[in-house]
């Protein structure tokens, strides 16, 4: 025990020293430059704290220039090309169309009878922070020790060995996903956007250049979790009260830091949670708000106006169909399941037409999974929505529906300039399906991420096996 303790202490000392060498020097200098009232660009920059201290180390894997021919293409932005061609090389989409200029030496795949789409983007996942196996030791999604934990970052919980990543890739064609903290708290913490490529570290999965998200939650979960502990919030009005008090503090924090960064003077105290809320107020961090009920979404929209921030998307917005006009008017997206209903009081009014009615009203909408199994079949979830829509007399084209799977979530993650559709120059995140992807009988045949072939149904060696599964029963099996 003593030995272990001293080793631990030693480790800490070493680490502290390393950090001081790498980055603490700048922090030490801050008070000096601050006191100078120097407002030059370099002085202002020196007073700012690091906004990206855990940067992405993701790198694309090598691919070969690839042409897919005779294939039906959904481009992700509402267009369908029949018997088309798609060319990608050096990790990027080069061209799609009826026919494209083809350089020499490309690998050609005959896509007859098959479909080519952008890789699926899941805006709501807990892979890594609620991984499989779902044992307590790996349960890292909810810091349920206080209703306001804007200070926690999901990436510090993500276990990159979650077998779920591989299933989402191979069975689901998911190439990008946002990992969120859970919904126990009003302010759950920061999300992280990942490329769905296994890596040794979470940093090496982080989507380069993706903005952070802030997970917020309304409704039953926060009031239940904290009400049962005899503390605020125990009601929906308590939820909003704690939210407002926290935003008021965040405004004050933002004011102090903005002034300090601009003018110098004495540095305000750092508050890691407030950093995140300040990022929201500055528009750098996107609010991803778990909220089921229509009336609660309306309250949150007013609160966002009161404190000067924007809600990017309501997640699990089971009743969004009731306020599709309000969401449209306020430019707020809804991320929803196809058909979940009735599992808790606030989902009692769930209907299979939710997403269809949102689309019909011109609101921004998308599918999401929130589920390690559902993420493997998001194309089927959209197929169910299409079926509901068509049975309700709402006509939505297949190619438009694909926007719910890639382009709209990419927009709501702030990465639509990089992925989510097959426009030239974007990341070659591509799925070749072995048939019509809105059929229950269809599965991914090949999945490329940044142009690298990372799943191939015809090649068992291109079937990822996470460290956890390696050497266990069923490792490397079809899943």
């Amino acid at each position: 025990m003593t030995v272990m303790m001293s080793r631990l202490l030693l480790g800490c000392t070493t680490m502290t020293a390393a950090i001081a060498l790498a980055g603490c020097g700048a922090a030490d200098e801050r008070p000096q430059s601050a006191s100078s009232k120097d407002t030059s660009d370099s002085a202002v920059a020196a007073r700012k704290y690091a906004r990206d201290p855990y940067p992405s180390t993701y790198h694309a894997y090598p691919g070969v220039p690839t042409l897919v021919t005779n294939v039906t293409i959904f481009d992700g932005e509402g267009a369908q090309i029949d018997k088309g061609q798609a060319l990608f090389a050096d990790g990027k989409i080069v061209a799609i169309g009826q026919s494209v200029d083809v350089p020499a030496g490309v690998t050609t795949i005959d896509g007859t009878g098959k479909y080519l789409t952008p890789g699926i983007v899941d805006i709501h996942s807990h892979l890594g922070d609620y991984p499989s196996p779902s044992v307590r030791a790996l349960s890292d999604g909810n810091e349920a020790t206080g209703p306001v934990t804007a200070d926690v970052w999901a990436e510090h919980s993500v276990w990159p060995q979650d077998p779920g990543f591989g299933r989402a890739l191979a069975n689901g064609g998911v190439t990008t996903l946002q990992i969120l903290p859970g919904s126990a708290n009003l302010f759950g913490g920061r999300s992280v956007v990942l490329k769905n490529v296994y890596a040794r570290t979470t940093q090496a999965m982080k989507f380069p250049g993706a903005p952070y998200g802030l997970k917020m939650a309304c409704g039953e979960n926060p009031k239940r979790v904290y009400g049962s502990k005899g503390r605020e919030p125990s009601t929906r009005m308590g939820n909003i009260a704690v939210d407002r008090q926290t935003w008021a503090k965040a405004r004050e924090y933002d004011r102090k830091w903005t002034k300090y960064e601009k003018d110098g003077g004495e540095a305000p105290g750092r508050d890691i949670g407030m950093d995140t809320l300040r990022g929201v107020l500055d528009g750098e961090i996107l609010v991803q708000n778990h909220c089921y009920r229509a009336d609660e979404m309306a309250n949150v929209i007013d609160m966002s106006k009161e404190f000067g921030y924007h809600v990017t998307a309501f997640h699990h917005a089971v009743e969004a169909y009731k306020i599709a006009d309000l969401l449209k008017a306020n430019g707020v997206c809804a991320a929803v399941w196809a058909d979940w209903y009735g599992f808790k009081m606030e989902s009692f009014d769930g209907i299979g037409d939710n997403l269809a009615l949102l689309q019909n009203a011109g609101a921004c909408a998308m599918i999401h999974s929130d589920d390690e199994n559902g993420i493997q079949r998001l194309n089927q979830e959209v197929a169910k929505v299409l079926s509901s829509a068509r049975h309700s007399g709402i006509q939505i084209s297949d190619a438009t529906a694909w926007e719910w799977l890639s382009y709209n979530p990419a927009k709501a993650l702030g990465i639509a300039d990089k992925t989510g559709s097959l426009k030239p120059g974007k990341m070659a995140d591509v799925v070749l399906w072995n048939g019509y992807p809105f059929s229950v009988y269809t599965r991914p045949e090949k999945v490329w991420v940044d142009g690298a072939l990372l799943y191939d149904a015809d090649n068992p060696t291109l079937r990822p096996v996470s460290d956890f599964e390696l050497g266990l029963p069923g490792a490397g099996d079809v899943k």
Partner: protein
Amino acid sequence: MKALLLGFAALIAAPVSAQTVAITGGTVAIGDGSAPIENGTVVMRDGRIVAAGRGIAVPAGASVIDAAGKWVSPGMVAGFSDLGLLDVNGVEESNDTAARNSPFAAGIDIAPAINPNAVMIGNERLGGVTRAIVTPSTAGSIFAGQGAVIDLGADANPLTKPRAFQFVELGEGGARDAGGSRPAAYAMLRDAFAQAQDYRRNPSGFGGREKDSLIKRGDAIALLDVLDGKTRLLVHVERASDIRSVLSLKKDYPKLDLVLVGAAEGWMVARDIAAANVPVIAGALADLPAEFEMLAATESNMGRMEAAGVKTALSTVGANTAPGEHVVRQYAGNLVAIAKVPGSSGLDWGHALATITSGPAEAIGMGDEIGSLRPGRRADVVIWDGDPLELSSAPVAVYIDGAAQPMTSRQTKLRDRYMTPSEGALPKAYER
């Protein structure tokens, strides 16, 4: 279409119609594993199937429903559900699935609690589910109690078979229920069986009334039926070794009529299961090591078990049930899908449909009564506007015991109310 609607209205007025009805011209899927039959006919009378297939003559005087361009199948049998036992899963007050503070366990009988007006029953009926195996859940004992088979008809008589089975947990869940370990779960099982036999030998001398007695008289009586093979014992286990342990219970209790529930690693012991002639109600698409007891889970589980001769059914066991029970047809469709994936084991279309119709019916010992369109079965029939396993299809008519069912639900009413989200001349509360 108008004629169809009128026909339904008339049938609703007389739940079990003596009238002979013939559904003609559709693609008929019997539900017994056979391939679908184009241009087939289904004849029903007195709430039962008279005949189904190709070349069936329409009896004189039958009212004819034209199903040309449509598909006709048996209604789905929810393989393992809580339909009728709750209104909202997360709302404790409405939820009768488990009773943590009850002194009773195996003796619990869910039959009197089934509520045919539960909102989910209406929604799931419209989704094509006509019967359900309904089970209680465990709480404080490995025994959950006695489940039932119900119909989802829009009438006051939901029970098809009360006390149809006993449900017990013997895997990780059983370990939890028994106090913390699998050995404790087996100790509880064996002790409960021993006490039931004590009760048989000397009912008047049997205690069971003491506050701390491990089982009550009602529990003992229920377990005697299990020991005698009169009531099936549905056992939830996932791990291969747990499956072997359950199968070996037959050595000590030879009359046990076992059914495995879950069995994510069933493919690893498929030959043993087949040899023991024990059916499996599996979770369909489990492919993650969600728990340590299912490390080898794969979507090929069902296909591999069937190939080894195991009688399989499909259910939402271990799955998220938020999409409702009718999601099993999507699961079945996926089993067809993976048949095309190299290295995977799926099912052909007919067998996939059987896993959600005759499969669960046979697993519960009621294959002669429900789950297929074979002659004599209860006339639980769904007419679909396409392939029943395909996501683009939906029921256009649902019959239970031959009675046409309403084709609206609370969900369709919500949809209709909010087809245009903004208010009209009056608040939404006046639109219905």
